[in-house]
């Protein structure tokens, strides 16, 4: 077994000094982390550089939504120079000729209606006078006559009222239509960032349309939604005749302080920090396992193809070579993990990781688990790569299986949301017991779980150990037979035959 250390040393030294290792240790994790964090950072911390103009299509009777929204947004969102981050622009269609004509007609009808209304009131007043002055001569005649006039005027007023309503409806629908056309063109010409359409009954229905070039601008839509929520609830409370002071009191913002229960201790909960941290951890674990496993695999394929393996087999026993390679590459991966840990500790201690107070999972226990699952995962996948590397002589065939293994190993990331919701659900637990998935799932589950996963950790460690022993056993049986075979793709029957025969 003395040669095992020499093989391990050689593999470690050669790989540790390679450019691909430096890339995988420093550049790849940086890129991965940035891929996660940058969109998150920009969506939450991006400093606004200018005022965003929000258009308003206000179809309410009061036509005061622009003012209300403007002051509400100004109170909450300001630029560095204290100007409001959002400007409100009421979309007007006054210059549209059809609308102006309609407006002129409406004015006439409105004047007519007002005049009839005044007349109607005057007649009512006269009738009241006739009614109260009982000694008035021809009182009955005056009452009858005024009644006749009142009826006529009322009928005419009702007809003009209907006409007035018709005009108003026509104007509203024209406004709704034309205002949208104007607002759309303003958005396309990038004058407006977005526009809102307030229907006449928006307070009752609670529906406000939001139109923007990109509806996935989560920050703006979320802010507007929050502000409108406040305004609508405010209006509803006012409609219930609640005093303004009381309304202000009721509308006082609520801040939810989130705490996560961990046995007796509680910790502040930040969904981004808690979720993205373990996810980055899984990716790092994936990089560490598969870069070391990949080196093992490609090294083996190279040695097999250029026949170094025959020379090595003449110098050392197959088990020494296999063990040395697994150990050497394991040391490469472990060094990588330790470098990352050192970087993480340095960044945490120096306060360069923002919100590191919420990153309570950055502790030594979890560091130990990371190393544990890296070692188990690496040994398992390393032995698998060793088996595949020895069976396949064609790099293309071997790479296909390699890709499949990578896809399987990264599978837990696809289910990460389910793990966040319930890291100890039955399905997640069962999936964690599959050796291919164990390391990734456990690295995700341990920091996300509400309670310690001691039982699952023991179960998975036992399962992984058994799986590793079995895989190494198979690899060892195949290694001597298959390493010298080139140019022929073995069938699975042959592989099984070799495994049985070497037993």
């Amino acid at each position, binding site marked *: 077994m003395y040669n095992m250390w020499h093989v391990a040393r050689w593999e470690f030294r*050669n790989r540790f000094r390679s450019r691909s290792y430096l890339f995988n240790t420093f550049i790849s994790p940086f890129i991965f982390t940035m891929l996660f964090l940058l969109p998150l950072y920009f969506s939450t911390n991006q400093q606004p550089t200018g005022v965003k103009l929000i258009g308003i299509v206000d179809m309410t009777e009061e036509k005061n939504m622009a003012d209300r929204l403007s002051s509400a947004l100004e109170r909450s969102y300001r630029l560095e120079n204290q100007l409001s981050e959002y400007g409100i622009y009421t979309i007007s269609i006054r210059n549209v000729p059809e609308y102006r004509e309609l407006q002129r007609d409406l004015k006439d009808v409105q004047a007519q209606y007002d005049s009839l209304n005044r007349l109607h009131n005057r007649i009512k007043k006269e009738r009241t006078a006739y009614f109260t002055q009982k000694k008035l001569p021809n009182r009955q005649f005056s009452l009858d006559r005024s009644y006749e006039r009142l009826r006529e005027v009322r009928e005419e007023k009702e007809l003009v009222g209907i006409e007035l309503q018709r005009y108003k409806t026509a104007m509203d629908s024209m406004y709704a239509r034309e205002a949208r056309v104007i607002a759309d063109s303003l958005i396309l010409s990038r004058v407006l960032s977005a526009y809102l359409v307030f229907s006449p009954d928006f307070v009752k229905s609670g529906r406000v349309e939001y139109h923007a070039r990109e509806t996935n601008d989560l920050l703006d839509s979320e802010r507007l939604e929050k502000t409108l929520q406040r305004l609508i609830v405010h209006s509803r409370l006012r409609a219930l005749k609640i005093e303004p002071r009381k309304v202000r009191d009721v509308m006082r913002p609520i801040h939810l302080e989130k705490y996560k229960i961990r046995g007796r201790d509680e910790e502040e909960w930040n969904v981004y920090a808690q979720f993205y941290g373990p996810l980055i951890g899984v990716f790092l674990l994936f990089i560490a396992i598969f870069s070391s496993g990949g080196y093992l695999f490609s090294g083996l394929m190279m040695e097999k193809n250029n026949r170094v393996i025959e020379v*090595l087999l003449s110098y050392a026993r197959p088990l020494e070579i296999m063990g040395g390679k697994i150990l050497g590459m394991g040391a490469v991966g472990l060094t990588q993990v330790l470098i990352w840990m050192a970087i993480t500790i340095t960044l945490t201690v120096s306060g360069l990781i923002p919100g590191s107070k919420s990153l309570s999972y950055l502790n030594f226990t979890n560091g130990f688990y990371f190393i544990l699952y890296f070692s188990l995962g690496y040994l398992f996948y390393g032995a698998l790569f060793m088996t595949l590397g020895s069976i396949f002589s064609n790099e293309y065939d071997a790479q296909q299986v390699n890709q499949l293994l990578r896809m399987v190993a990264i599978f837990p990331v696809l289910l990460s949301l389910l793990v966040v919701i319930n890291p100890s659900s039955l399905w997640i637990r069962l999936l964690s017991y599959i050796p291919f998935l164990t390391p990734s799932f456990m690295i995700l589950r341990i920091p996300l779980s509400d309670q310690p996963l001691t039982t699952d950790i023991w179960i998975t460690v036992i399962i992984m150990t058994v799986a590793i022993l079995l895989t190494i056993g198979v690899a060892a049986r195949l290694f001597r037979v298959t390493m010298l075979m080139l140019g022929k793709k073995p069938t699975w029957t042959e592989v099984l035959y070799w495994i049985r025969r070497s037993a």
Partner: protein
Amino acid sequence: MQSNKKKSENSPLLLKVDSISKDYNGVTAVDELSFTVEPGHVFALLGPNGAGKTSVMRMIMDIIRPDKGAIFLNDEPRQRLKRKHFGYLPEERGLYPHARVLDMLIYFGVLNGMARRTAEIEAIRFLDRFGLVDYSDHPLHYLSKGMQQKVQFIAALLHKPDVLILDEPFTGLDPINQIALREILEEYKKEGKLILLSTHQMEMAEKMCDRICMIHAGKKVIDAPLSEIKEKFNDHTYLVRADHAMETLHNTDGVEVLEAGSDGVKFRLNRAERIPEILKLLSAKHPVKLFQMLEPSLHDIFIHLIRDESEAKHV
């Protein structure tokens, strides 16, 4: 037991291959093959492509195990022996293309039980001998094919093995380096170490080897000293250079003229004892400039034997 070991260490080396067989998925590569390699001789394992030579060498190197039979070095089973006793130059050369020459040789030396420093010193010594010392810090892919071949040879020799197994050692070497290699092998032979080589260059085998084992389809065809084989296949062919010798030979009973050319007349005698009589006859009639006995070349013996074997197998 210790004294036994000591005794075994002091006694001359002897590699014994005892009835080994190897089967690959129903195809017999080596069939009940036995031979012995003794010190002071270069042992050649010859045979056509696919005869099983590489399999035999790999079994001696314990890279693969025989299905039947065993291999012994001084009565010690091969599997119990440390690999450092053996040096191997495989037919398909295998080196790390991106590793530095010296680093790689040290690595191979260390794997063979050498101390790191000793391996370094020995590697530099060998590199110097082969004119490669200036390349010791270069990556291997920087070297020409011939130079890589020499590095591979150094890797096999570096740890001074007791048994040297060389598969096609002369391939890719220029004549000067072939001579250098022969010199080293001669030294090895003198030191009483065991050398087993396989080659398709029959001239080289004829020049270097003392004992030949020819195999075909995994079976032994012949295993004897080279001189004995040559004697056995001697067909009493002679070359004479003399004016008008052809006519005299044609008219002599028991003589078969094979070929007449500018270098003389090649003929075969029915009995070797008749040489004085023929020489007397020729000298009486013509001035004889040259009379030479022609030995069969290893190349011819190889072709003859393998063809016979193939035909016999076919029948």
